[in-house]
């Protein structure tokens, strides 16, 4: 059942130290800023964060990193012109980094959500990112075995939710959110609008409410 929360602080309550947290967004599009700010106030530490990037400028995920709450980050593209918070932590050995190809990152979370124990992909074969991973020939092509990324919590952003937790997104702000929603034990969503069941087109729902545990409306 989906819980409509009164505040972002309520929505992120109970996140434990040491949790694995999926954080939606591609750059700042779809980044759940208010939930991250609440997680900073909530104070859980020693987190493993999975997100496409490692924070931009000084807000959002970058602020969470700056707060010293993140032990390890799993992402595809940490290095950006405005990733100075991460860069500094990384160079001073204060954060662990695991780089994964972007499609592998998405597919590993999808696997966790879909009950797939592992899958073979051609991406990364023969590269540094496949070192130490099992490879296998299938029908004459070489594949690398990748394992699921399951998480304790997903923090994502959507455009509109109904009170059952069905979600729709807006343009490329959709990005990782629907996949992350499936891969976490508890999925927390910040939305711009909340409507009653029946107000979203059932053909256009992107994330069915079964994947959503907590919703909070934030000012748009």
């Amino acid at each position, binding site marked *: *059942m989906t819980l409509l929360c009164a505040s972002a602080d309520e929505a992120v309550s109970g996140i434990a130290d040491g949790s694995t947290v999926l954080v939606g967004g591609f750059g700042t599009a779809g980044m759940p800023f208010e939930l991250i700010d609440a997680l900073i106030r909530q104070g859980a530490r020693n987190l493993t964060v999975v997100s496409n990037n490692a924070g931009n400028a000084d807000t959002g995920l970058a602020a969470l990193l700056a707060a010293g709450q993140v032990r390890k980050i799993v992402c595809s593209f940490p290095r950006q012109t405005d990733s100075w918070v991460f860069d500094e932590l990384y160079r001073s050995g204060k954060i662990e980094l695991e780089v994964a190809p972007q499609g592998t990152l998405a597919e590993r979370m*999808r696997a*966790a*959500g*879909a*009950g*797939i124990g592992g899958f073979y992909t051609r991406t990364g074969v023969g590269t540094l990112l496949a070192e130490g991973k099992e490879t296998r020939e299938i029908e004459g092509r070489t594949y690398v075995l990748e394992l699921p990324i399951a998480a304790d919590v997903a923090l994502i952003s959507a455009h509109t939710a*109904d*009170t*059952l937790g*069905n979600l729709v997104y807006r343009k490329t702000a959709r990005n990782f959110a629907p996949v992350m929603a*499936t891969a976490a034990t508890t999925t927390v969503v910040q939305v711009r609008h909340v409507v*009653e*069941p*029946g107000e*979203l087109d*059932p*053909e256009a*729902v992107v994330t*069915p*409410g*079964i*994947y959503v545990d907590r919703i909070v409306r934030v000012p748009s």
Partner: protein
Amino acid sequence: MRPVSASVVEHTDRGPLGRDEMARVLAGDIPRGAYVNLGIGQPTTVADHLPPDAGVILHTENGMLGMGPAATGDAIDPDLINAGKSPVTELPGASYFHHADSFAMMRGGHLDLCVLGAYQVSASGDLANWHTGEPGAIPAVGGAMDLAVGAKRVFVLMSLFTRAGEPKIVRECTYPLTALRCVDRIYTDVATFEITGDDRVVVRETWGISFAELRSRLDVRLERDVH
């Protein structure tokens, strides 16, 4: 969810449950707001016994959450059917998705509960419900294996004995298996059972039969108490 009874309740002053009563007993154990898949056949009838305010959301594996009651008359729409291919309706808050997404939902452990029929269930919770294994029988599995493996809890709804009087709760299934160690509870016409996972079968309630008689007729380790 109703707590497991500390000791069996025996209703020996009446006969076995009818099919409607069986469905009602099971429906009463479905938690409020649960996401539930009801298998083809008798399990489908459980929907008729869910109170409207229970907020239970029905999944059908052919790509829908928020399935409503059977469609009749002008409401019949060939594009809107359930897993048994009968016309159904759509409730507010429904959503549609394709088959890979629908089965990812099942296989990824997101459904709270599924209700399935069975040929046999073993004391360890092995389920046999897809194939009689008879020579000439055409095998057809549908979504049974996916449901049995994927749902967080699996309830079986079946008569306890075959027409020939053979018990369907057995030490080891003789029919081809659907999935290993997946069944949590069994709802039958004469008793409800809890599978504990350590090869004990706990009787929760009986109708028209005593615990002692049940024990004499089933070749599994039956307990009257979870402790």
